[in-house]
């Protein structure tokens, strides 16, 4: 069920009505029912797969919880040394369950997302007849598999570390995994963040609903008016890159950067808004990433929940593992302390970034894109201090707006190059786009005459982007003031008619200027990941 369909509007309204009619202690059941319907709408077989995965993980989580309970009981009256021993013994026990559960969920993820890629590349690089006889393999991945798998992993690892207690009620656990506002495209919500909100009693509050609806409208505006309108232009060029050359690749890179941001953050806003209508606040996944002044900052503002996941469950475990610490010492011994330190710090960063690329799909372009960002982030770490010294020597006022805007533009340009790597149909086409963008400056295109978008559509894109920029700047200013207020909070303080007017203007803009209906694609870019 697309979240920008009429059906979703009806579905959401019906679910909300039932949810608020239901006594508080049964409200989560409404969420579970709605989530099953929402997911089942995409295909019953996928629903069965998710539920089966959830059952397996649930059983392992109970075993892990048992171990945690035993640990607590046994260590209660024990002395410190014995307690540590008990803790270690139980941790080993839990580790077995954790590894087994992780093996199952990651294997399922790999089968659906990467097996075809692995077979294809093994066949390409290993010229053995038997291997060549392996048939090509391509499975259609269940909706949001990358997202719910990561949620399950975070649940298991947090449980292993004793940060959370296992949910003993299977249906409640299933509600967390399948909660429809986050199951298809995230945010990758950790159990400790959302679990308790789901079981709480939420009373009907029109202000809460209004805040949620505003977020839904804003998300739909970004998705339907900006992203989907730009899509006709980017699809035209990315579909046939070798027919174009020159500056147009910068234009399409910028356009795609806006498109993917509006598409993904638009979806997040719709989902978060829908969730807020139920009184459940999901974490922010985007904080105006194109205002970032460095790439590491960009990644703290873009797809925040995925970044946090990799930081928490890949970067820290890898960089603090015994194996890595030993390697670190060896590298420093061999190549010196300074370079060795940088080199050692780069390994977990590159691991995280290759995995981030792979998470989008087993495609060389995604891996190259991950590597590109990994290398840039390593370089920014490496050159951070020398650059700071240089700006100091050149007496550049780092706090002035022009310097900050320059840094934002520099980061944006680096992102645009990354988008061209990401969107190429093979590494060759990415190289072509970047090289041609830098060299063939002579070729000029007419955005209205040479492409499918009409002048009126370009005008809509331009005006909408100005609105997006204005709202983003306003939100950024509010956040920098640290008053704890956001734009919706400001709106809530305004006159009731003004609030409604904003809503009417928002809905009318989407209805009149949005891309939807017959022939329009309803898919979100991140749905495929």
């Amino acid at each position: 069920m697309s979240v920008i369909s009429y059906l979703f509007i009806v579905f959401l309204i019906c679910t909300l009505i039932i949810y608020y009619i239901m006594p508080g202690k049964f409200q989560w059941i409404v969420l579970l029912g709605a989530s099953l319907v929402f997911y089942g709408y995409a295909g019953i077989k996928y629903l069965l797969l998710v539920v089966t995965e959830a059952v397996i993980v649930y059983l392992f989580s109970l075993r892990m919880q048992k171990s945690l309970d035993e640990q607590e009981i046994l260590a209660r009256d024990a002395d410190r040394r014995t307690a540590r021993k008990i803790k270690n013994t139980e941790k080993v026990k839990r580790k077995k369950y954790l590894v087994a559960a992780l093996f199952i969920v990651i294997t399922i993820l790999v089968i659906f997302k990467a097996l075809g890629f692995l077979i294809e590349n093994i066949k390409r690089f290993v010229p053995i007849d038997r291997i060549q006889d392996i048939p090509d393999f391509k499975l259609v991945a269940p909706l949001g598999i990358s997202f719910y798998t990561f949620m399950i992993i975070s649940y298991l690892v947090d449980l292993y570390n004793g940060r959370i207690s296992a949910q003993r009620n299977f249906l409640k656990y299933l509600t967390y995994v399948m909660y429809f506002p986050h199951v298809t495209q995230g945010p990758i919500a950790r159990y400790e963040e959302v679990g308790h909100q789901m079981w709480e009693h939420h009373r009907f509050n029109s202000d809460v609903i209004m805040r949620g609806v505003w977020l839904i409208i804003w998300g739909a505006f970004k998705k339907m008016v900006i992203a989907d309108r730009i899509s006709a232009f980017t699809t035209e060029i990315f579909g046939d890159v070798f027919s174009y050359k020159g500056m147009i690749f910068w234009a399409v890179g910028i356009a795609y950067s806006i498109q993917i941001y509006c598409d993904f953050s638009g979806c997040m806003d719709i989902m978060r808004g829908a969730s807020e209508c139920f009184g459940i606040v999901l974490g922010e996944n985007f904080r105006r990433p194109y205002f970032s002044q460095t790439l590491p900052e960009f990644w703290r503002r873009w797809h925040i929940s995925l970044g946090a996941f990799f930081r928490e469950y890949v970067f820290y475990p890898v960089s603090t593992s015994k194996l890595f610490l030993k390697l670190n010492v060896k590298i420093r011994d061999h190549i010196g302390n300074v370079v060795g330190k940088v080199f050692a710090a780069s390994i977990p960063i590159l691991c995280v970034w290759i995995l981030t690329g792979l998470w989008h799909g087993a495609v060389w372009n995604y891996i190259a894109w991950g590597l590109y960002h990994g290398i840039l982030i390593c370089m920014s770490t490496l050159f951070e201090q020398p650059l700071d010294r240089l700006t100091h020597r050149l007496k550049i006022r780092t706090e002035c707006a022009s310097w900050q805007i320059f840094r934002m533009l520099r980061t944006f340009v680096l992102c645009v190059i990354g988008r061209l790597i990401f969107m190429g149909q093979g590494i060759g086409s990415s190289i072509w786009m970047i090289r041609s963008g830098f060299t063939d400056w002579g070729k000029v295109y007419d955005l209205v005459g040479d492409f499918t978008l009409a002048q009126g559509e370009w005008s809509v894109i331009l005006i909408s982007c100005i609105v997006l920029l204005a709202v983003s700047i306003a939100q950024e200013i509010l956040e920098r003031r640290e008053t704890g207020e956001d734009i919706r909070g400001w709106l809530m303080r305004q006159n009731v008619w003004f609030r409604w007017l904003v809503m009417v203007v928002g809905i009318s803009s989407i209805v009149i200027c949005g891309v939807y209906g017959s022939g329009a694609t309803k898919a979100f870019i991140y749905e495929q990941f």
Partner: protein
Amino acid sequence: MIKCVKGTVSILSVLLMLFYILSRAGQLAIPEDFDSDVWASYYAEEDNTINTVLIGSSAMYRYWLPTRAYEEQGFTSALLATAGQDIRLIPYTMEEAVKSQDVDLFVVEIRSAITRGNVEEVGSDKLNYRLEVFATGMKPSMTKFRMIQNLYDADESKKIELMFPILMFHDNLLQYDKEEILDRMDEKTDEYKMTRQKSTFKVKKRPELKASSERYLTDEILGYVDDIEKKADELGVDVLLISTPFVANEKQGAMQLELDAYLDDQGYTYIDFNSGEDVIGLDYSTDFFDGRHTNVAGAKKFTSYMAKYIKENYNLKAELDGEAEKNWTDACEAWSLEEEEMMAKWRKSVEGK
């Protein structure tokens, strides 16, 4: 309590405002097409100034000249006719028509019953398309809602879009230029009162209709005719069923006679211009531009005859205030110039035959 009332009032106001904006925008967004504009022209007529509404397919708007009827017999008429109009739409059209006009008489062209008898040949996709074209211009109302729900063979999303044309045609607003949009915002009546004429001709021969032993018109199809009569009774408006003259093939001829027999049997007020003697005086060798429609010369003869018939049998008289009267006088003048030009072309081609 006060907060609750305030909340309800503000929500209703917002919904009304939204409904109004989107309905208006929908009227601006619908495709520029004569059939889609039928309703816009009808709604633009001053309220309660139309005596007769003529409903049907192109077999109505090709035959009828509203300005001629007004000039010759002094009553006003409006055409709610679109190409290939499905007979099932007629009761809904009647219901919508009386919302803004105090209609004295409905003249319903019934050839669409015969088209319905050939529905496999027409194809349900085409019927669906024709319904879309007809319905887009209609204002959102319960009548339109029921029409779409009952007759539109599509999924719910498409039905919602047809109910609110802005959802279906919003992209047009980005394609139209400023002048086109301003022109559409200016609600005005049609210059020629919705008639559509041609000045070419094709030599045809009046067919002789022969009955067949086979029964083509099912009870379901004949039931649609009954629905028209029932709706007219319900609305308290007279209805006159007609079959305009055309060059029917053997099967169509048989169906026409079958229809005649049924309508005669039911006692409905009905004129078939295909069977019996030619009371209009049409010249089949020059007055048709194809086998199914008259040209401008044929339309003149048909309108004169029908208008006289209506005047004699229903005693209609236009009651117009200054502005509405001027509107009709202007239309008569405009059409008269156009007709003169078309007739000249027609005469020239007939003479050169």
